């Protein structure tokens, strides 16, 4: 990677996904930031929660050569019958093991990027952005947490004429949004649960700041030259956020406080394809065996949503149970489609 002599903020980035079709309009390159201000039970990007770099072992392709074990300066790795075991108390996320691994079985999650290097990388698909009305989406994790870097990146992208989107959970100081929003063409804002107590139970934080930021953003956008540039997304998690009350409550909030700024409200069905991600991070996922919502339910919740807000802004997406008997195409075979979106 090239480095620039200028002092610029650097960011910790988990992944860059090109030709993403799921993170806003058109074809997009999505930048997944590392570090999140929430820790949702259903998170399907668990590797994005912690800010600090982590390593993980992917069994596929591991030769069992032990180079990583010998490389680790902290003696945090062991070669066992079950493959490489990572002692996470010892691992500092320095990534040396991943650098030395011949087969990419050891992977470093989270790399430092300089703004201009990253912008160069993101500009590679400019022709596709232009033809599709797409652009770059900052996602995560929570891009707003790496405020200086995000701001510099958004400014740089704007300066290059690339359309921008910010995909946020909304949990960040309002001042951060005040700084970022002028450089964000489209705001993808997650509203997960209207009840603050449940919200805290599901995500680790209450929703007060999130809702306040949503109102702030809507106000900002309403005065904007292109006002209807907020998309709200709601994860539909069976037994948690999938209640009629929640959808009705969120709908009421959108209608009463965000009207005029929101052009789309998408209900995103829970997905469980991230199960292995938890295993690889040495985590137990309480939702591992949770079934997908049924198509019927997604449609019913959509109807409820439509009864509260302007019906044409509501849609739903994601895999549902028993796909094969339904008209719904099995559209989530490829895991990465699910990476972005509602956390």
């Amino acid at each position, binding site marked *: 990677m090239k480095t620039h002599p200028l002092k610029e903020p650097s960011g910790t980035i988990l992944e860059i*996904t*090109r*030709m993403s*079709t799921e993170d806003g309009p*058109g*074809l997009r390159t999505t930048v997944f930031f590392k570090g999140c201000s929430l820790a949702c039970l259903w998170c399907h990007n668990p590797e994005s929660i912690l800010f600090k770099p982590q390593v993980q072992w992917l069994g596929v*392709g591991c*030769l069992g*050569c032990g*180079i990583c074990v010998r490389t680790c300066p902290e003696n945090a790795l062991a070669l066992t019958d079950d493959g490489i075991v990572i002692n996470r108390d010892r691992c500092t996320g320095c990534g040396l093991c991943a650098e030395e691994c*011949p*087969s*990419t079985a050891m992977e470093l999650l989270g790399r430092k990027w300089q703004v201009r290097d990253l912008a160069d990388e993101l500009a*590679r*698909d400019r*022709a*596709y952005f*232009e*033809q*599709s*009305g*797409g652009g770059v989406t900052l996602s995560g994790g929570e891009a707003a947490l790496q405020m200086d870097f995000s701001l510099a990146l958004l400014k740089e992208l704007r300066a290059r004429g690339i359309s921008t989107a910010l995909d946020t959970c909304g949990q960040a100081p309002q001042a951060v949004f005040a700084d970022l929003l002028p450089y964000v063409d489209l705001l993808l804002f997650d509203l997960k649960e209207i009840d603050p107590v449940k919200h805290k139970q599901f995500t680790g934080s209450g929703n007060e700041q999130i809702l306040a930021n949503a109102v702030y953003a809507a106000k900002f956008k309403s005065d904007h030259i292109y006002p209807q540039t907020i998309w709200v997304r709601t994860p539909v998690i069976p037994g948690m956020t999938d209640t009629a009350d929640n959808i009705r409550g969120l709908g009421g909030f959108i209608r009463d406080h965000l009207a005029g700024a929101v052009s789309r409200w998408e209900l995103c069905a829970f997905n469980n394809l991230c199960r292995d991600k938890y295993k690889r991070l040495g985590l137990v996922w309480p939702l591992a065996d949770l079934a997908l919502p049924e198509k019927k339910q997604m449609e019913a919740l959509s109807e409820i949503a439509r009864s509260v807000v302007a019906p044409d802004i509501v849609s739903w997406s994601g895999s549902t149970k028993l796909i*094969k008997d339904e008209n719904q*195409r*099995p*559209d*989530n*075979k*490829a895991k*990465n*489609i699910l990476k972005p979106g509602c956390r």
Partner: protein
Amino acid sequence: MKQQTSANHAVKEPKGLSDRIRWLRDYYFKGTGRAWNNEFTAWTTATPWDVIYNEMTFYIVPETYMLLSTLGASYLQAARPVDLPVDFWSWPLVERRAWFVRDVIVNRVPQEILPGDLIAGARFNIQTSMCFTEKESKKWLKLVKGRGGAREKMKWFHDHGYGNAGATSGHLIPGHERVLKIGWKGVHAELLSRYNTLTEPERKGPKGAQLRAMVTASAMARDLAYKYKDLCAQMAQREKDPIRKQELSMMARNLSRVPWEPAANFWEAVQALWLNHMLVMTDENYPGAGVSFGRVDQYLYPYYHASIRDGMDRDFAKEILKCFWVHANTAYDAMIRNGNQGITAGFGQLITLSGLGAQGADMTNDLTYVILEVIDEMSPILEPKPNVRLHRHTPEALLDKVVEMIESSQGAPFLLNFDERSMAGMMLEARRADLEHLITPDNVHDYAPVGCLENTMVGNDRSGTVDNNLNLLKAVELALTGGRDLIPYTDPMTGKTEKPKQDGPKTGDATTFRTWEAFWQAYARQTRYIIQKCVDLYDVSESIRAQFFPTPYLSCLVQGCAKQARDITQGGAEISLTTLEAVTFATTVDSLLAVKYLVFDKKVCTMAELLAALQANWQGHEVLQAMAKNRAPKYGRDDDEADALALKVMELWCDETWKHRTKSTNRRFRPGMLSWNYWAGDGFILSASPDGRTKGQFLSNAICPSNGADIKGPTANANSVGKVLGGKAVEGPGDWDGYFNLLPNGASHTMTFNPSILRDPEHKAKFKAFLKGYARQGGTALQINMLDPDMLKDAQTHPQNYRHLLVRVTGYNAYFTTVGRELQNEVIERVSHNKF
């Protein structure tokens, strides 16, 4: 694992077919169960020395190598004798051949009309005597099968991993537009005029013989049409159903006029086009491969327009075309009992739709849509293969139709050609091959692809688009060893092992190279060597064809042959090039990148260690192999450094290719990239490569990144392809409208998408935008697959449920269940690796 059944997957079904077309289509798919078919019949002069099978046209089909002698002998065995005119043996060869082929197809092969068919012209696959005298026969035999002959040289070249080359039939676009306009009558008259201008000595020489043979051939279509006319008239008389009776009468009337007279309406034009086309296959004794139609929606449009104006129903136009579609598929009957990979794959009677016209105009018309509807309703069906030409200003309606068809047909039922990039390549060709008087800024839009995606001009161009297939990777091997095979060759039939001997130039002991540059220089020298070797090999079969296998009928259809009184096989076409198709491009680039990374940049191993690992087929060197595979840079990721080396590789072999001409026919070589199925088969021949590939694994396909290397997704993949073709002009006009293209022939690029990308209108719009982006950033031609691995695995287990499942690889279509297991596994692997 959930149980997979066919019900889980929607295989495209034909739709909206009339009873007539459904019957014809179903009948065709009965295959060997049909009472009627178009298998080869063989015809002999009944001399003891007769030769029937021109095996050299199959030198580019390694699957047939074991069968060459058998096929030749079988055709002779089965051949029926033809009574010859008394003075037959006093004629020059080309006249003997012209007479013989015409006599067989007109007077010997039976004529039939299938129930309901609206187009006449059924049996056309024949194997005819080469009409040799005893002396010619002996000479041919020695040159082809003798020691050091064409077959032996070709076998050695192939067995040692260089690739293959041979003077191959088909693979051009005849001047159909002209013959529809002036009729064979006009062609015949022109030939007579030309003959009349010959001097007396010229008439006695080869020019006179050629023109007399072409005159004979120019009446073949007329004579055959008259036979069919009589048949239709008889059938009409007997027919009870008044509607069918009228159809048969109309067919008789059509055939009494065309193709001899100029076509006057759509039905006549399609009838004439079919007969004119099928007789090319008759003339060449070659069932269809690459005998392409060019821009049918353009040159048939005036007839379509006139007929619609005169009251023809749009649906009846489709009905006529659908009959034409069924006819085109019967080309496959030639080898219907030989369901092996490659042979049943798409033969490539390619049609071209839409595209640019003069002054940047888009040429899409109603007939474009009519034909797309025909394809949509007939699919899945293999022939004729369509290629839709897109450009930066393709109308939204056409793009919508294209995307809709991709969605409903498990991937595109057509190839996509990209005009600006393709035309930049044709302009480069004009400059590099001294053709600036024939390919100009004012006519370059008339180009059309042949076979799959091989761009040529139309009606005056034979550019041998599949004739030379060279594995660039062999040069890496020779650079590593200093000019010998890395591993000894063992003949699979005899089990005998040959000791590797010096073949390429002695570029030195690679283990003593101190710098990457030294290795590159060795590679460059070996590249020049293998190109020269391929050129020399090609000339062996090219010179034999020029001497022994004239095709006077085809020569009538290609401008330049009459004027020069020279057969097309002797270089008679105005544009007479031959194409060197580089195979293994990405494997070669990735191997060079790996040598640079492992040995010189990161010094992970020494050259000696790398050589040892390759000789051991990576066995016992798994860590090094993993580093080669996973740590070394790769082409296809939009990585500027890797792509810069890829471009250097491209420029090297392209520049070298342009320098060569055939000695026998003076055809200049031009570069292209089409790998047909060689990248699969030759993977078992070429030794392990520095990119981590073991012997037996597939090589890379055409201009595609190596299998699984394109981890940055489709846009990065396409960007890499665009860059290695020369990219875009930073300033100035480039070779065409800001574009460069080092490969005038074009480059096959296959991409497989997950069907989810087309799951709703919003995503369809995104996919459409991808195509528009590709037109700006990508290559010359794109094949889109839309597959899901479960479906393919299930198709392997239950092939009977998937008889009509089409997959599209390297720009040729194949029914998945009929391709070889290795290729099936390859397709599955690709799909499984998609990261979308």
